[in-house]
Structures are given as structure tokens and as C-alpha cells.
């Protein structure tokens, strides 16, 4: 030691009133050097960068937290893992091991789920279920949730052909104050379309109406939406029992709970505004109190919670490739992962932290990905410490939707790793390569 101060890249920041809020707090920023006890540097050395890392501990603890919040209020509640959120086999396995059913919205997801659970443990949603998929679902005993009248007729035809009388549910959409209605899915409640569907289904004499389903939105931060949704579906169930002789066996309230992320349009950080599982569960229980079915006929309550269960478990480790200075004075970092891997950068002001101890005064910084496109921005404004090429950054809370919606655009999709509760790390999905790409390609004979 010479006693000299350590050299840091020189930095100059002009003070601007009001800027701090926009850039969010930096005072509390701590490096994230380990994920569940495994050094980030070791993970990158072993599996490369960029790298998605999932914490099994986090998935399990979130799952149990939600299950417990429900079970103390609702005796017959079950979770159905929303495959679209993250359908890596290993992630689904953890969810199923914890007691979740599978909620699928396509034939591909159905095929994936059938490899993991019994058909009767599958809920099949979505507006597009071709005949072949319906047939597969009915044969397996899956719960098919019907989305529109054409599908109802198609499902009847398939069931009739198979000589089955499957139990199905109707997806219902409704207007809720403050929530943009997802009216394109299911049968509308207020207009009377839902009851038309009930009559139509019963008149068909093939399918058995056994459930009601709704999904009111995604990243819904207002627990009151769930109170009202639960109340409206309860009242519909009461009406079916009273006037149509239909006793529903399940009510599925869909997904949509917010995770700890922060939307672009949001002022306060997610962890300060996102309701707890207990608050959501409480609202649901209050809404369901309107149910007035005979004792012993209480329906099973399903929830299809997606992002709130898995977002926190996932991190994206990325490496600083270069740093540059923009003409407006901001520092820019070019990272090896961009919106191609991190689709959710379009929705969230992601929580990003350096993966190694850092020094120096934070300055206004923009984080770019590696793509040759203007939209490739991981974070557009934050106060960030000065980093150098080769330094690593962890983007936190990225476990939902990224490893399903990522794009194969100009480069490979990164590897995905799971860290076990005992600190073991193993691949869940290999990094792609040019071979992955070429495996799908053909060159027409006349060009060969």
C-alpha cells in the first residue's frame, strides 16, 4: 500500500433540481455479489454471460407464502402454475412439487404439461384451441375453459365424437372500476352474454358446466379488483344454482398479482406499492363471502398467479462491454444482454445493481443492450456508479415472462441456471448457438 487514493475514472455531474426522484434512490445500492450463496463471478465463469439465474429457494418460499395466505382464509384454494410465465421444465417441476396444477394456453404448453402432471391437473385456457388440442385435453381429462361460442360448438363436436361428457368452465369477462377490461376473452357478464353461454351450453347436452373463470388483468396493484371479481363470480355461481340448476365445482380467479417490479409509469418503487399476498387473499376471501351454495358444495378456488410467484426468483447477470459518454453528458454502458433477452425492460424500470463492490460517485447512466436498434434500452435513466468493461451487473426480478418471450434476434438466447436450496447450481436451459438456429433451417433444392 502506498497510501495514495485509488484512481477512479474522473466524473462530473451537473446538479439538476428534481432529478433525483426520476433516477430513483442510489444511496442504498449494494452490490449483489452472490445469489443464494453462490458467487455471481463463479456462475459466469462456469456458464457464461449473459446468464439467467433462478433461485429455487425464492420460488418455493413465494409459493408457500401465497398458499398459506390463501389456505388460512379459504379451505379449498389451489394454485395453477401459469406456464406462459415460465415454462422451463425445471421451474414447472418445482411448482408442481409444491402442489400447483398446470395452467396452459396453447397446445404446446399442454404437451409440455402432460409430461409433468396428470391431465386432470391441467387447466386449459386461451382463445385458440384447435380441434386436435381439444381432443387431447378431453382425452386427458383436463379442465377446458371455454372462451367463445365457436369454441363451445367445436368442443361439443369433439366431445360427441369421443363419446365423452367433459366438465368445462366458462371464461367470464366483466367491467371493474379502474381496470381496463379484457373483454376480448370470454363471455361478457354485464351484457348477459355469459348467461346466454350458460343456456347454450346446457341446451347442447354434451358438455357439463362445472366451473367459472375470469382473469382481470396483469400486474393489478389494486386488491379491490379481486374483491369485486370474486363477488361477481360468486353472485353468478349463486344465480346458476338458483335458476339454472347448475352447481359449479370450481371458480378460477385467474392471475394478475403484481410483482415487486416498478412499471415505467409508476412513481414509487414496486416494493413500496405492491400489495402482499395476504392483502390479495383477504380481498378475495371478502368477495367470495357472497357465495351462497349449499353446505358441502363449496367450490374449489383456483388462482393462476404467474409473475408474482417467479419474478423475484430470476436474475439476469450481464457484463459491461463498453462505456461511453453521450452528448447530453450521461454515461452509457453497453451490456451483453438487451431487450432480446429482457423483454420486460419494455414494462419495468428494472432494479439493477453491480455484481462486484464498487467505488466512485454515482452519475446519470443509461444501460444499452448489444442490439443495433434504438429500442434496445435496459434502463433509460438511473444513478449508477462508474463501471468498467468486464464488470458485471445483475438485473433483478426478471423471472417472469422473459425466458418465454425472449427473442432470437441476431444472437443466441442465454443459458438459464437454477441455484438449489443447498447452493448447488445447474443448467435448466443451455445457451443457444448458431447450430440451434441452423437446426431449423432448410435451403430449397434449387438454391443448393
Amino acid at each position, binding site marked *: 500500500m*502506498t497510501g*495514495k*487514493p*485509488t*484512481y*477512479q*475514472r*474522473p*466524473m*462530473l*455531474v*451537473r*446538479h439538476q433540481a428534481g432529478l433525483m426522484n426520476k433516477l430513483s434512490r442510489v444511496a442504498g445500492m449494494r452490490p449483489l455479489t452472490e445469489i443464494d450463496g453462490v458467487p455471481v463471478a463463479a456462475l459466469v465463469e462456469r456458464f457464461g454471460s449473459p446468464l439467467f439465474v433462478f433461485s429455487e429457494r425464492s420460488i418455493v418460499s413465494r409459493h408457500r407464502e401465497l398458499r398459506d395466505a390463501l389456505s388460512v382464509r379459504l379451505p379449498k384454494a389451489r394454485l395453477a402454475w401459469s406456464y406462459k410465465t415460465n415454462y422451463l421444465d425445471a421451474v414447472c417441476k418445482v411448482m408442481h412439487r409444491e402442489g400447483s396444477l398446470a395452467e396452459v394456453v396453447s397446445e404446446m404448453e399442454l404437451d409440455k404439461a402432460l409430461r409433468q402432471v396428470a391431465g386432470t391437473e391441467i387447466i386449459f385456457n386461451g382463445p385458440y384451441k384447435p380441434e386436435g388440442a381439444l381432443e387431447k385435453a378431453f382425452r386427458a381429462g383436463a379442465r377446458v375453459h371455454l372462451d367463445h361460442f365457436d369454441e363451445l360448438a367445436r368442443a361439443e363436436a369433439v366431445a360427441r365424437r369421443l363419446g365423452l361428457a367433459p366438465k368445462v368452465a366458462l371464461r367470464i369477462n366483466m367491467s371493474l372500476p379502474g381496470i381496463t377490461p379484457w373483454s376480448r376473452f370470454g363471455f361478457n357478464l354485464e351484457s348477459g352474454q355469459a348467461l346466454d353461454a350458460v343456456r347454450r351450453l346446457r341446451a347442447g347436452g354434451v358438455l357439463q358446466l362445472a366451473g367459472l373463470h375470469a382473469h382481470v388483468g396483469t400486474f393489478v396493484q389494486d386488491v379491490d379488483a379481486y374483491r369485486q371479481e370474486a363477488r361477481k363470480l360468486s353472485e353468478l355461481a349463486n344465480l346458476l344454482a338458483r335458476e339454472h340448476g347448475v352447481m359449479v365445482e370450481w371458480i378460477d380467479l385467474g392471475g394478475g398479482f403484481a410483482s415487486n417490479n416498478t412499471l415505467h409509469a409508476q412513481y414509487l418503487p414496486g416494493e413500496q406499492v405492491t400489495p402482499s399476498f395476504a392483502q390479495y387473499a383477504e380481498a378475495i376471501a371478502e368477495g367470495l363471502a357472497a357465495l351462497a351454495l349449499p353446505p358441502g358444495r363449496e367450490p374449489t378456488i383456483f388462482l393462476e398467479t404467474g409473475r408474482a410467484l417467479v419474478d423475484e426468483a430470476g436474475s439476469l447477470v450481464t457484463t459491461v462491454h463498453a462505456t461511453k*459518454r453521450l*452528448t*447530453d*453528458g450521461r454515461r452509457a454502458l453497453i451490456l451483453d444482454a438487451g431487450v432480446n433477452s429482457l423483454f420486460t425492460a419494455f414494462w419495468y424500470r428494472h432494479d439493477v445493481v453491480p455484481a462486484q463492490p464498487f467505488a*466512485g*460517485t454515482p452519475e446519470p447512466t443509461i444501460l444499452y443492450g448489444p442490439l443495433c436498434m434504438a429500442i434496445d434500452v435496459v434502463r433509460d435513466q438511473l444513478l449508477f456508479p462508474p463501471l468498467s468493461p468486464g464488470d458485471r451487473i445483475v438485473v433483478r426480478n426478471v423471472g417472469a415472462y422473459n425466458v418465454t418471450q425472449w427473442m432470437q434476434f441476431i444472437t443466441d438466447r442465454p443459458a438459464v441456471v437454477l441455484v438449489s436450496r443447498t447452493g448447488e447450481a445447474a443448467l435448466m436451459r443451455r445457451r443457444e448457438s448458431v447450430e440451434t438456429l441452423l437446426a431449423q433451417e432448410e435451403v430449397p433444392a434449387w438454391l443448393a
Partner: protein
Amino acid sequence: MDTLQRLKDLAVSESGFVFDPHSGQTFSLNETGRAILEALKRGETVEQIVTDLRQGFEVEPGADLGRDVHEFLLLAREQGWPVPQVEAP
């Protein structure tokens, strides 16, 4: 007004807080930035500044001080500081 005088007018505190009496604006510098500003006030060239920094700081191998100083000077010019024109390193 001559450039050097305007530079000398920039008031710098121990903690790197800078006040520009001509524009009324305030800035923060880190320790390295402050060393560069002091060197500019002494009228040093980029080369002399780099030498100063090497003497005054513990520099990790691989650090490109010439590029860093150049970049800092460009940034300072953009902020309206009376910094002499510099050549790219």
C-alpha cells in the same frame, strides 16, 4: 475574459462541490475530477495532467488515463466550462 481566469473562478470545495459564478450552476466532481480541474487551473496540458494523476493516485494496470482525461474535458466543455480545446488521444 480569458479562459484560464474563468477556470480559476470556478469555486471548488474539498468534497468536490463546484460553483460556477458565471452561470450560477453547481456540479459534483469525484476526487479524480477535482484533481483534473486543479491541474487545468494551473494551465497544464493533457499529458501533464495524466502524469499528475499517475503520481497522485494508485492506478490499476490497464486504465487508460489519456482517454479518461480527454472524455472528462469533452464533458466539461458540454457543461459550459471554459476548458481549452483538446485533441483526441
